[in-house]
């Protein structure tokens, strides 16, 4: 008899637990996603439409860009938003700059320690400057290229791929 009661209780517990769905708790989900790196965010975006929409949220990417830099320089958010958002900033400038500068200083063995390093003010400034140049070039100069080239040139092409790995 006691055994049966215990089993029932356990079954109820399991049922209760099964009703908990992470998708119902968006705040929790976002908190978790905030701690991921860029590749994991990409993977997460493939899970379902909700997750896809969430990972497109710029605040996640802002956190990714600047989580190790505090306090964040004021006014950056509006500027970055105007120039295409943090996700674009990350993909175009932050990630290549971080990878490129790290490869120069750190041995291969460190692997996933890449993000632990803290941004310095200079690196932030440089990334933002390059981001602005990129915006100016692609958005404003891209339309009226002299000579009509097929591919829009980008002064950030140098950042596209890792070098001498």
């Amino acid at each position, binding site marked *: 008899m006691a055994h049966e009661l215990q089993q029932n209780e356990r079954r109820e517990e399991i049922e209760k637990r099964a009703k908990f769905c992470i998708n119902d708790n968006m705040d929790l989900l976002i908190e978790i996603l905030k701690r991921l790196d860029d590749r994991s965010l990409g993977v997460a975006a493939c899970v379902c439409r909700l997750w896809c929409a969430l990972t497109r949220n710029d605040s996640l990417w802002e956190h990714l860009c600047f989580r190790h830099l505090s306090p964040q320089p004021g006014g950056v958010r509006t500027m970055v938003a105007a120039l295409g958002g943090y996700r674009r900033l990350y993909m175009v400038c932050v990630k290549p700059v971080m990878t490129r500068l790290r490869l120069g200083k750190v041995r291969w063995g460190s692997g996933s320690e890449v993000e632990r390093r803290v941004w310095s003010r200079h690196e932030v400034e440089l990334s*933002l400057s390059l981001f602005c140049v990129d915006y100016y*070039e692609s958005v404003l*100069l891209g339309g009226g290229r*002299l000579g009509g080239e097929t591919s829009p*040139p980008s002064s950030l092409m140098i950042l596209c*791929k890792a070098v001498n790995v």
Partner: protein
Amino acid sequence: MWSCEAEDAGVDELFAVLGYKVKSSDMAEVAQKIEQLEEVMGSVQQDGLSQLASETVHYNPSDLSSWLESMISGLNPMPEFDSSSDPFLESSTITTIDNGSSVNSRAQMVADSDFGSDLISIPGKAIYPRTQPPAPPPQPQPQPQQQQQPPAKKPKTLSYLGNSVANLQSERVFARPVESTRSVVLVDSQENGIRLVHTLMACAEAVQQENFKLAEALVKNVGFLAVSQAGAMRKVATYFAEALARRIYRLYPTNPQDPAFTDLLQMHFYETCPYLKFAHFTANQAILEAFAGKNRVHVIDFSMKQGMQWPALLQALALRPGGPPSFRLTGIGPPSNDNTDHLQEVGWKLAKFAETINVEFEYRGFVATSLADLNAAMFDIREGETVAVNSIFELHQLLARPGAIEKVLQVVRELKPEILTVVEQEANHNGNVFLERFTESLHYYSTLFDSLESCGAGNCDALVSDQDKVMSEVYLGRQICNVVACEGVDRIERHETLTQWRVRFGSAGFGPVHLGSNAYKQASMLLALFAGGDGYRVEENNGCLMLGWHTRTLIATSAWKLS
């Protein structure tokens, strides 16, 4: 079969593979002779240019000129470089270089043979009337590209060999002259590279001495030798050869050149390598620091072009503590060939950008053929405005006209700027002696092209497209052409060193402003991002920042204020 074996018995196998029949028993002697030969070849190269220039026999086959033309036209698609109008295409004169020494008193060339295809028919004796040509030690073929040109290469290299060892007592080492159809490269490309440089120098010297016949023959040689090189050396040599040819034949490139095309070339140069970016970032840092705490700022840009420098400055000003100042920009540019108001377009784009990042922005553009045409009143400096004047690779052009630079600096003084930022090439290409200019620019542009090779090279997936690289090379090639071929007011690429500029600015009443450590750090970081970043060096020189490739500094950023 037995008899064959008996014949070949003793023939060294390795040499036999190459076609030389040398008995193993002779190997010691052969080795000794090879050593001798190498020794004398080595010592000859230190003997200086004059020996080569005076004793070289030059061939002038008609085919070579079309070959040179195709190389040049392949690299210079512009109309004014239309090679069909170059007269040296039609020349097919036989040039004999006679010299004082009796060594080659009977030197004759085989000019009527077709060098392009069938050099095998040239008997060795015709090329070497007196000296026994020691065939060089057999060497493995260094590069596949040379294999395609072996017939053309052989007489050249042999002729050089023959002449370089003419004074020496080396004897025939091998019995195999040019009759063989083997495609073995006889001299490796490094030696050809040295010969190439020597020939270029000899040609420049000939031009200096106004010995145009000799110069003409030498410049054709250069084209020939340049093909044997790979990469940067080849390109540099080709550009210099073309510039020399233009000088010799008085076929000067038209000035002024289409500014739209120049802008396009400069854009590609901007993307390919870090020099312009370095210039912009360091100048911006100096201007940013000069504008600290100021609320109304006015930048006057002598080198407006596409306005690539200003987005970064606007961004830095927008993010500074206390918010952005109200920003005014005046751009100076050359008149455009078509009817578009290029300056206004650039200004409009910058205005849009400034609006995006919420910076109050005002723009004005001035068209001027030369900076010396400007006067201070045009700029309408307002009360309470802080002025900065910026010039990237523009001031050296003023040195072509006497008095122009002094006038411009006087105008700048009248503007009462808080800071004047200047970026210039770090080289002396403005000497009075042509040969010195030539030598200086040869070293400078070789280094520059070397650094270009590293951008985009190294990885199989190209970071920088080939088109960008080629356009950058054309951009530099034009400068080379101007330094070497032009004179007087047409020669606008009158680069001077930082030391020379310091004297100029000092005497015009300007004092130096030290670029801070922020600029240095930013510049170093910027360079670390570039492929081949190891080769670039940022140096600080009495408050000025210099960017160089390995040991050679190439551009220098300096800042000045009224003293």
